[in-house]
């Protein structure tokens, strides 16, 4: 008996609570579906469904088996994914992506970790922003990637979420530049330099909301991305910019001199702002190669970018329009 195919039928009937709908979903006729369920029940020696003329309900025994059936299906899919990859390339090929803002050291560390663990597997690495990675996941053109949060995670599975703390770049003569740690509220009056919103609207909005929540609502937001341009604006335009700690060579504890004189980097008090990352892959398609990439990327971000586990969530006050309550 093809156990996997039979379990597929079992899960479909359990989820649809209806033979006709389950058959339609599986792209088969109803009689063979009923026969398969009966065969599976005989094979397992367990009655999975109660059938009346009107409806199908899953039995207690069926409920107990459903989670494991789903697991077997997920694992069988992962096995097929690995096989597909091995078949596609001589040694197997993993199509992976990293966002453009990851530093060269992080990429190097990731590659070193990965080649150490995933022997015989070829890594095809692309540089892609989160939005494009999500599109390629959907088109089955990408196996795994490092993405920015927040983004629409429907249909994805994720590795651990890590945060890269953001500090502030400000002119050396700003009052706040004299502090070891800068409270966001002390930036009041300075414009904020951010990447253009269209690149990642949710990340952009999240950063501005957190600034506002912590007492800093910039009079204007100026859009810039290139390092030199950002520095120029900081020096000349009464503006500040956000930048991750690892982009300024300031690991925990040491304070090397700022490279370009007039601009300094300072951590923010309470570390309220961060870039958040995780490895992601399409749901049900995780396999050993994906796990190896996840492990390598997570280790690389921790060792080279000072990334740390995501902070515990803040209090949450749901309002009535939320329509749910836990």
């Amino acid at each position, binding site marked *: 008996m093809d156990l996997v195919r039979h379990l597929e039928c079992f899960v479909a009937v359990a989820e649809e609570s209806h033979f006709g709908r389950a058959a339609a979903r599986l792209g088969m006729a109803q009689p063979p579906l009923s026969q398969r369920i009966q065969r599976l029940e005989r094979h397992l020696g367990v009655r999975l469904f109660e059938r009346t003329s009107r409806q199908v309900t899953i039995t207690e025994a069926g409920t107990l088996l459903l989670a494991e059936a789903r697991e077997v299906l997920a694992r069988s899919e992962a096995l097929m994914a690995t096989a597909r990859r091995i078949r596609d390339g001589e040694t197997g090929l993993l199509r992976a992506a990293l966002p453009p803002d990851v530093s060269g050291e992080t990429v190097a560390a990731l590659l070193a970790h990965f080649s150490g663990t995933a022997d015989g597997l070829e890594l095809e690495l692309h540089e892609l922003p989160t939005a494009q990675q999500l599109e390629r996941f959907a088109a089955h053109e990408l196996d795994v990637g490092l993405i920015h949060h*927040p983004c629409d995670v429907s249909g994805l599975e994720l590795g651990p979420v890590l945060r890269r703390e953001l500090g502030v770049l400000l002119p050396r003569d700003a009052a706040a530049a004299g502090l070891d740690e800068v409270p966001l509220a002390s930036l009041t009056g300075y414009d904020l330099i951010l990447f253009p919103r269209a690149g990642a609207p949710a990340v952009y909005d999240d950063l501005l909301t957190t600034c506002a929540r912590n007492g800093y609502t910039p009079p204007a937001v100026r859009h810039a991305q290139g390092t030199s341009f950002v520095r120029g604006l900081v020096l000349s335009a009464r503006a500040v910019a956000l930048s991750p700690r690892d982009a300024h060579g300031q690991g925990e504890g040491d304070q090397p001199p700022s490279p370009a004189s007039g601009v300094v980097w300072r951590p923010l008090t309470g570390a309220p702002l961060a870039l958040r990352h995780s490895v992601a892959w399409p749901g049900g398609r995780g396999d050993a190669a994906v796990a190896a990439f996840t492990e390598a990327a997570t280790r690389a971000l921790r060792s080279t970018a000072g990334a740390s586990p995501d902070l515990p969530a803040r209090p949450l006050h749901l309002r009535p329009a939320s329509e749910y309550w836990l």
Partner: protein
Amino acid sequence: MTDALARIHAAFADAGVTGRLHALDIDSGAQLDAGADQPVCTASVHKLCLLVTLHEQAAAGLLDLTEPVECSPQARTTGPTGLAAMLDGARLSLRDLAYLMMSVSDNAAADQLLERVGLDAVNRTTARLGLARTLAVHTFGELLSTIKEDAGPGGARSLADPLVVTRLRALDPARTNRSTPRDMTRLLAAVWRDEACTPEHGAAIRRILGLQVWPHRLASGFPFDDVHVAGKTGSLPTVRNEVGVVEYPDGGRYAVAVFTRTARTSALLPAADAVIGTAARLAVDALRAP
């Protein structure tokens, strides 16, 4: 139309959501499809299916809408509005329970009604109306329980964690109450054309849909005193939906169904609520264009 579609997709992207929309001119059949056949989680939008079922059963003489129901405060389904938020026992008619279920999305009232009509009856009604991709697999209480289970010990605040969000069964259309935007506009059109129920019951359903209190989604796109908006929202972590009918004084009436998922996990996202109105307006304007 292609221009309207591009603007709708741009509006969704700008608000940080993934959106699916179907808009239908109830009389001409003209339509606008932006992911109209994608499976979506209905959340509280499914209360509309329950309301139609209730009236269908009343029309068939299976129940009397004025029948009183004892609503004990024990074991009530939780929620932030209506009976779900009240502390004491109450006695309400079936139709007033339906009013609470639709006007403020009262989860306790909805589950009292479900107890009376049954989940299977709701699925028979949607099947009868040809909504082949619409299915309820659990009550509102059960739906909330899956979220509680999947969120784990961190409770509501862990819902801000993307990793937790990917694990919620309530956000997977294959494993929760589901439909498509096209199925929902088909249901609304049937209600407005008196094809779902008798005219008397159709009028009662339309009255209740017009009493919804929320102004922040579909209605926000139509800030016109002479335009009537009736609808039902649905919300879960990262999910914001509304389906409804917009009626113009010249007789134009349009069923619109908008289902969105936000990128951000924050509970409060006014722009994501408002884009439901913005997208619906773009769609209705396109359908009304000469």
